[in-house]
């Protein structure tokens, strides 16, 4: 049993790390059940009244619906555009291929604040009003590079040969894409869709800059926070967290299943 001490130390160290990462979230969730007016210790008892309050707050529910709409819509567009650009770059001889690939992935390195400001100025000049659509476009801008990178990485030469076989058997180009390429890339498409959803779902800064009357949930939470802390903000924060967890879980499920098969 000479190794007991290092073992104990490792366990302590790992626990400390996980505490550091998850304690804030745990506290947030815990005090969303607070049976009292302040989300601070002591915990006076457990209650679901703040969740009820969230459910009865029409502005919050509306913002939640808005967020889901923007997340689903922008993710679908990002996956579609990402897939098409990946297909084009992987399968055809294009001029300045390396440069085009770099340009497609470049927005990954730009901060959301810069992208949001850039879009705000552009939309102002073009006369596009602040709206959920504008925020959705912003989310496509940040998620397209991600979708492209994920899908492009999954397109192999072996698949190119499978597409060749389909053409050889008489498939037209659109049939190759819809019947062969997209179904073969299904796991990558699914993964990039859920990852985009996750990022769009809790994205704040672009939505904050580009929406006005109809806002997304993170923006609504921010305006709630301005009027002070209260267990309702914890409750809605917990809801946001729970939905993110579900999205990440779905993503893992797809990726893991795919890995096991290959």
């Amino acid at each position, binding site marked *: 049993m000479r190794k007991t001490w290092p073992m104990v130390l490792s366990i302590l160290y790992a626990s400390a790390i996980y505490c550091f990462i998850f304690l804030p979230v745990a506290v947030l969730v815990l005090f969303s059940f607070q049976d009292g007016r302040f989300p601070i210790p002591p915990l006076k008892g457990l209650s679901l009244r703040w969740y009820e309050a969230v459910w009865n707050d029409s502005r919050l529910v509306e913002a939640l619906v808005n967020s889901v709409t923007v997340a689903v819509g922008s993710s679908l567009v990002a996956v579609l555009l990402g897939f098409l650009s990946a297909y084009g770059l992987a399968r055809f001889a294009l001029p300045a291929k390396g440069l085009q690939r770099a340009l497609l992935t470049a927005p990954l390195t730009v901060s959301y604040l810069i992208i949001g400001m850039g879009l705000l100025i552009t939309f102002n000049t073009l006369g596009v009003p602040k709206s959920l659509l504008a925020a959705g476009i912003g989310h496509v801008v940040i998620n397209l590079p991600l979708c492209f990178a994920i899908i492009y990485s999954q397109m192999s030469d072996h698949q190119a040969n499978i597409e060749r076989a389909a*053409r*050889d*058997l008489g498939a037209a180009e659109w049939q190759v894409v819809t019947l*062969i390429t997209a*179904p073969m890339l299904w796991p990558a498409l699914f993964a990039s869709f859920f990852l985009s959803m996750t990022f769009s779902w809790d994205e704040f800064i672009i939505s904050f800059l580009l929406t006005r009357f109809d806002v997304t949930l993170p923006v609504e939470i921010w305006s709630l926070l301005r009027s002070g802390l209260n267990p309702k903000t914890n409750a809605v924060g917990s809801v946001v967290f729970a939905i993110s967890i579900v999205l990440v879980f779905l993503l893992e499920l797809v990726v893991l299943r795919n890995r096991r098969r290959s």
Partner: protein
Amino acid sequence: MTTLAVDARNITHRYSGFTALDNVSLTVPTGAYTVFLGPSGSGKTTLLSVIGGFLVPQSGEVLINGRDMTEVAPAKRPTTTVFQDYALFPHMTIGANVAFGLRMRGVGSAERKNKAKRMLDLVGLGGADGKKPHELSGGQRQRVALARALAVDPSVLLLDEPLGALDLKLRRQMQAELKSIQREVGTSFIHVTHDQEEAMAIGDTIVVMNHGRIEDSGSPERIYLKPATHFAAGFMGQSSFLKGKVRDVSAGSVVLETPCGAFALPSGPAAYKPGEAVVVSVRPEHFVTGEIAGDGMIALGAGRLRTMTFAGTHHLGELDHEACAAFRPVVQLPQSGGPGIGDTVRLWARVEDAVVLKAEG
């Protein structure tokens, strides 16, 4: 006039700095099993791609069933390809894979299913139509790829090293099956391989290729017994080459000057000039050993037996020749009771078995 399945005329194709096909012309008769044989880089796969429509050659034309197909897309050609990596559709069932070509041709669902079943029966995979490709072994996937390509009734089936990924035993078995399936469906098969045993076992016609050119083409027996070039003799089976020069030319025969002495051999179809460098090619089983000079035999000197390899039905011995260090005869020796390592063996060959060829490189 017999119809030609494929008539390729003066095909040339260069990749950057590398000539894959150098003015190749070739005809493939309808309903035969043709094998393109050559080492990697010989242009055999490029030629198959040109016939299949995956590559438009820089010059030359391809006629399939008498119609110009040089620039026609693969989908519009009466050819289908069995790919080396099978290229099955991983997300579809075996049945859907085999029926894919018919689906693209607008054939109804019930009819497609029937045809797919018949095709799977043909390749010995009846009942597998509900499975997915990843549930099958390599040999089974190979059969599915074959059934899928045959389901659309192509007039020419192209097989790109189809047995390359299989183990030896399965290869030999699949060779026999491929040939019997070809007999049954009557489709013209063109099969690319670098395995000369496979080519001999399976081909009605073998086309031997090297450096983007056709070295020889004909029946396996003809190419083995009377190869047209030095390369063809060395690539199709084993052969020993004795270098020499032409001393004299007469009708139908040449007199050669070799380190083993001068002798006359039939000259075959090629024309020779006095002084030209040639080689005499002798197969291991065509060497006659011992002191048995006689009519119709040429003396090839003697050599000391250096190594012996046991090949089951016989031994293969490699000799150090006494008169010519560059001549390394590989001789078939008896299974038992023959000479041993270090023994000196006198070599002879029948005039009709030794082949004179223009020397290469």
